[in-house]
């Protein structure tokens, strides 16, 4: 009976093609959700040239860091935030010498695409017709960066009462799209996703907070060589061009 039961389950798994094939050249990359599209395209290009296979676990950086902390079998970590990477580094979870600050992003102010409000700079957010501003709540990096930026501009205290903290970037975009808020702060790469919002202001890179997407190999990885190979690949000129195509800023 028990045998039959186990056999049935195994057969089911097999039929759906999810029996794990032991392959040493298959790596698992934990990556921030905002990198999904670009990394899928990048890995497809990589896999056409290499015998290695790259799988991804996409999620919020904080969740991914937590999983790696608990010993989840990820080989590489692409974070959307330095803080998560720093924590792992401090606890000795990263392979020394593999950490790299790869990408950056730009903060932008978005409004509904049919908005008639004249918002051309952060100062315009103080106007009385701007009643609500959507911002991803902490610990979502874009929310933290936005409030830091507004603080540095000396606008935070006046803008804060208007802020509606939402769950994440997607929720920020959704509330702007629906017109329930007059404006929102997102990354430039995220704004490109929605056709119902328009960018009215790009925070200049030198004036904005230092946004960094670091990458590193996990110390406990059993597949360091293929991981290094992929880490090198994401830094070749063609890969950099691809990141730029998706509106990321490539750091050198």
């Amino acid at each position, binding site marked *: 009976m028990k045998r039959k039961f186990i056999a049935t389950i195994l057969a089911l*798994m097999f039929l759906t093609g999810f029996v794990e094939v032991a392959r040493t050249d298959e790596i698992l990359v934990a990556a921030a959700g905002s990198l999904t599209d670009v990394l899928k395209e990048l890995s497809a290009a990589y896999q056409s040239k290499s015998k290695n296979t790259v799988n991804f676990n996409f999620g919020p950086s904080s969740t991914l860091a*937590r999983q790696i902390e608990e*010993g*989840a079998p990820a080989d590489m970590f692409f974070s959307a935030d330095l803080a998560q990477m720093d924590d792992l580094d401090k606890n000795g979870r990263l392979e020394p010498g593999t950490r790299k600050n790869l990408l950056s992003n730009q903060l932008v102010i978005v409004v509904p695409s049919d908005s008639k409000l004249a918002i051309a700079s952060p100062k315009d957010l103080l106007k009385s017709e701007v009643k609500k501003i959507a911002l991803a709540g902490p610990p979502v990096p874009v929310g933290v960066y936005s409030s830091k930026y507004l603080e540095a501009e000396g606008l935070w205290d006046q803008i804060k009462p208007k802020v509606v903290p939402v769950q994440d970037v*997607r929720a920020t975009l959704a509330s702007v799209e629906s017109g329930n808020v007059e404006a929102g702060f997102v990354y430039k790469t995220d704004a490109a996703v929605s056709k119902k919002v328009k960018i009215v202001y790009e925070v200049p890179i030198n004036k904005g907070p230092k946004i960094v997407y670091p990458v590193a190999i996990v110390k406990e990885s059993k597949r360091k060589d293929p991981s290094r190979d992929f880490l090198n690949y994401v830094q070749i000129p063609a890969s950099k061009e691809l990141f730029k195509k998706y509106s990321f800023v490539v750091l050198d």
Partner: protein
Amino acid sequence: MILSFETWQITIFSLSVGLASTLLILPFGIATAWLFARKEWPLKSVLETIVLLPLVMPPVSTGLILLKIFGRRNPVGQWLYERGVEIVFNWKGVLIAMAVMSFPLLVRSVRTSFSEVNPRFEQIAATLGASSLRIFFVITIPLAYKGIIAGALLAFSRALGEFGATILLAGNIPGKTQTLSLAIYSFVQLGKDSDAYSLLGITVALAFLFVWCSEWLLRSAKKA
């Protein structure tokens, strides 16, 4: 609507792991439900509450507890890892998350159906010399089977809808651990609403079918 290969794969994966999870918890669920319905012991209510907890706790916190238990850095996870069994970041993680999250629903439904079986039948069988095991399989189960199937269907639907515990324990790995719920989440995050809608359609249709069957069985069990 023509479904892409990816959509099919996600749907079949979710259905098969959901089915495996339901089959896995069924014997334990029936045993637990029977104990709760027929036996009394000190502090029984405490155990009953613990079993029901995953039903009301935030799924993410259940997922965190599971990650703590099965992570390589912890005794249980370490023990399994040394024997070549990895739960985190693969389909076994999906299976466990689904099983834990749907278990209370199964126990609750099956328990109700056991309670509705008149204990007199069991007592009469006992006076005629039937063993308690025989009574259970010949009297109790046949009288409660509709409720058991209804409970299993409900547990199966819950398993299909699982999200919070799965994303923490098994990750969101396309082609490996990505279920219908995780795929919908990813598509929504990326602003690919039309892809999300086609998966949403499948989810609604499946959930409707299973919950409807479950309710129908419960109604017909009441009439009988």
